[in-house]
């Protein structure tokens, strides 16, 4: 069967599966809609959490980012897994014992304040929309690259699928589709990884392959060879990296704390039956996530090595087929700066910005790029990092069904995360804003309807952001983690571990952390991007890592304010006592 047919088949089957599951698990009550009835098995929930967590970025982009940044890519590997330790040990079991439906629920109740609840809702909506725009875009990109569907139509198809299972099924539908999506995405990630690991090192297990010798008779280890090759070409060694230690430290910590503070992740632990299950479930989630996260650095390293081997100093006329395939997809471009007909790789951008292709072809048959040449370096090849995952099956000469699998896997990763985000947005509106703040008299049926309407509205907004991505979307992923770290995490953490923390302290802390982080990231990413260099950063911390300082400010302000204002009422002390023990 032709690869294209296989892709349609795999993607179509996976979509039919998701919709079938959604119809089988419709939500009938608000409890089912918000937390899947609270009866999800911890292992199942761990798997759903893994799919919820691993987004289009984890699946498509992460290995490529690591391939091109080497050691510096470790910030994502440690940052996006270490947060689960904080979740399992510091947050999840207590929030499960608290036993409500949303994160603002906890903050509003624990700090006996509607204002605190509304501040939490604002943080949550901002974080979740930043995140979801990228997911819808990811869906569109996979559609356009693998199915020859225009990006916008791809986004609309994605919206329709998510609409069916998120609006009908609520958390219940999402949970079971996420389990299916995890299976699809992990299989799709691992199969090409086994092959490429075997191809490069002779060992099919990528985690071991990355520590083995290259299969080329040189006797060099993979990482040794990468270091040598890259240094030869003028890059920093793969295993050394270029970021300063304080920046690596702060970005890693901001991502960890941000992960632990992300509402769509936290809320997954509200769906298990007991507090002890929340711990267990976080462990399982991390096992399922680690499978992909320990594979990604290996895939990145192998793909980089493979890429250099097959491109460096090769005649364009003899370039492998995948090179031209992805060139025709705009993800690779070549400009023969020295006119020798061979492709040379090096440090720096070959020309200014992303390639703009002319209709014509150059002397070697390459697509002509109209961008202005960058003269300060000898690099001739533009390569979009995403191809390190997307083109892997072709680079390793794998059969068509593996390529089809990667397409279905990328969609599974994007859709599962989008659905989880939509759910927390809709429940924060129907439950926190309507039921708990502005319309307490709303009926159960009315609330369920409101939740579905809110989910529908959120899908439309997300789709709009996917079709017309505002320039800032790619720039502000740092926002989601930085803001979660600086606003929600400290409020939840102190709500559990300090009985003395009161309403005034928590609100002052959240507002301080939120504003500081927002202004710092906004300044360097949106309003004054030209000043975004290490020399201008506070303590040398980049906007990606500044959430750590926001978090420390939050803690400091909250503790000082709480010290000079009255202690929380008795019921709160009683509530804290209650969430601290699993029984009851």
């Amino acid at each position, binding site marked *: 069967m032709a690869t294209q047919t296989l892709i349609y088949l795999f993607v179509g089957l996976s979509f039919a599966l998701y919709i079938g599951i959604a119809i089988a698990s419709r939500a009938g009550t608000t409890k089912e809609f918000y937390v899947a009835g609270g009866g999800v098995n911890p292992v199942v929930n761990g798997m759903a959490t893994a799919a919820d967590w691993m987004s289009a970025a984890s699946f498509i982009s992460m290995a490529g980012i690591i391939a091109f940044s080497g050691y510096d890519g470790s910030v994502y590997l440690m940052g996006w897994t270490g947060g689960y*330790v904080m979740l399992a040990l510091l947050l999840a079991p207590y929030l499960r014992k608290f036993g409500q439906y949303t994160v603002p629920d906890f903050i509003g109740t624990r700090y006996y304040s509607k204002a605190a609840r509304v501040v939490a809702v604002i943080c949550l909506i901002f974080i979740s929309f930043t995140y979801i725009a990228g997911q819808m875009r990811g869906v569109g990109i996979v559609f356009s690259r693998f199915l020859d569907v225009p990006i916008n139509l791809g986004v609309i198809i994605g919206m329709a699928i998510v609409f069916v299972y998120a609006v009908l099924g609520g958390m219940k539908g999402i949970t079971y589709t996420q389990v299916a999506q995890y299976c699809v995405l992990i299989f799709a990630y691992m199969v090409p990884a086994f092959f490429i690991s075997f191809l490069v090192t002779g060992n099919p297990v990528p985690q071991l392959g*990355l520590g083995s010798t290259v299969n080329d008779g040189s006797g060099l280890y993979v990482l040794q060879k990468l270091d040598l090759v890259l240094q030869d070409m003028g890059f920093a060694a793969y295993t050394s990296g270029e970021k300063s230690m304080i920046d690596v430290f702060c970005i890693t910590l901001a991502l960890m704390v941000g992960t632990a503070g992300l509402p769509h992740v936290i809320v997954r632990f509200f769906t298990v039956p007991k507090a002890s299950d929340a711990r267990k479930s976080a462990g399982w989630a991390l096992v399922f996530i680690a499978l992909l996260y320990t594979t990604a650095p290996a895939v990145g390293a192998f793909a980089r090595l493979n890429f250099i081997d097959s491109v460096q100093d090769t005649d364009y006329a003899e370039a492998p087929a995948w090179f031209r395939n992805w060139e025709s997809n705009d993800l690779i471009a070549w400009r023969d700066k020295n006119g020798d007909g061979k492709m040379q790789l090096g440090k720096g951008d070959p020309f200014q910005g992303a390639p703009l292709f002319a209709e014509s072809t150059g002397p070697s048959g390459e697509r002509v790029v109209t961008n202005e040449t960058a003269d300060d370096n000898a690099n001739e090849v533009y390569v979009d990092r995403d191809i390190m995952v997307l083109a892997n099956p072709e680079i390793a000469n794998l059969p068509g069904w593996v390529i089809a699998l990667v397409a279905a896997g990328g969609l599974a990763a994007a859709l599962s995360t989008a659905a989880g985000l939509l759910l927390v947005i809709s429940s924060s509106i129907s439950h926190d804003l309507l039921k708990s703040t502005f319309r307490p008299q709303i009926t159960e049926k009315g609330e369920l309807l409101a939740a579905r309407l809110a989910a529908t509205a959120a899908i439309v907004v997300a789709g709009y952001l996917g079709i017309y991505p505002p320039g800032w979307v790619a720039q502000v992923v740092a926002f989601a983690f930085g803001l979660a770290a600086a606003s929600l995490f400290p409020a939840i953490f102190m709500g559990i*571990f300090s009985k003395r923390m009161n309403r005034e302290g928590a609100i002052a802390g959240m507002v301080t952390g939120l504003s500081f982080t927002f202004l710092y990231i906004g300044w360097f990413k949106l309003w004054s991007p030209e000043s975004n260099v290490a020399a201008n950063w506070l303590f040398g911390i980049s906007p990606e890592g500044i959430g750590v300082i926001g978090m420390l400010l939050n803690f400091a302000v909250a503790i000082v304010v709480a010290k000079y204002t009255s202690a929380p009422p008795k019921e709160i002390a009683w509530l804290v006592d209650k969430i601290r023990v699993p029984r009851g």
Partner: protein
Amino acid sequence: MSDSSPDQPEGAGETSANAKAYWSQNIRLLWMLMTIWFVVSFGAGIIFRDFLDQFALGGYPLGFWFAQQGAIYFFILLIIFYSVRMRQIERQYDLDD
């Protein structure tokens, strides 16, 4: 990670001695495990990476291994250990769910 117990409002004193003992044992365990969490990631993977890189684990420089592989394995072990140990502690204080 501790209570400012002298400042506790009246009435919170109703917390039973049993629950208090349970909680302080939990806090001790948390300190221990969060210390390991910090050491394997921020310690071995970032602060002492250059030092550890002189040792090798197969083809991995050791610091690099912690940063891209090892820390994640330790994270999993930490959660499993905490989960199992807390079950025991909860049974011991008769507070399990």
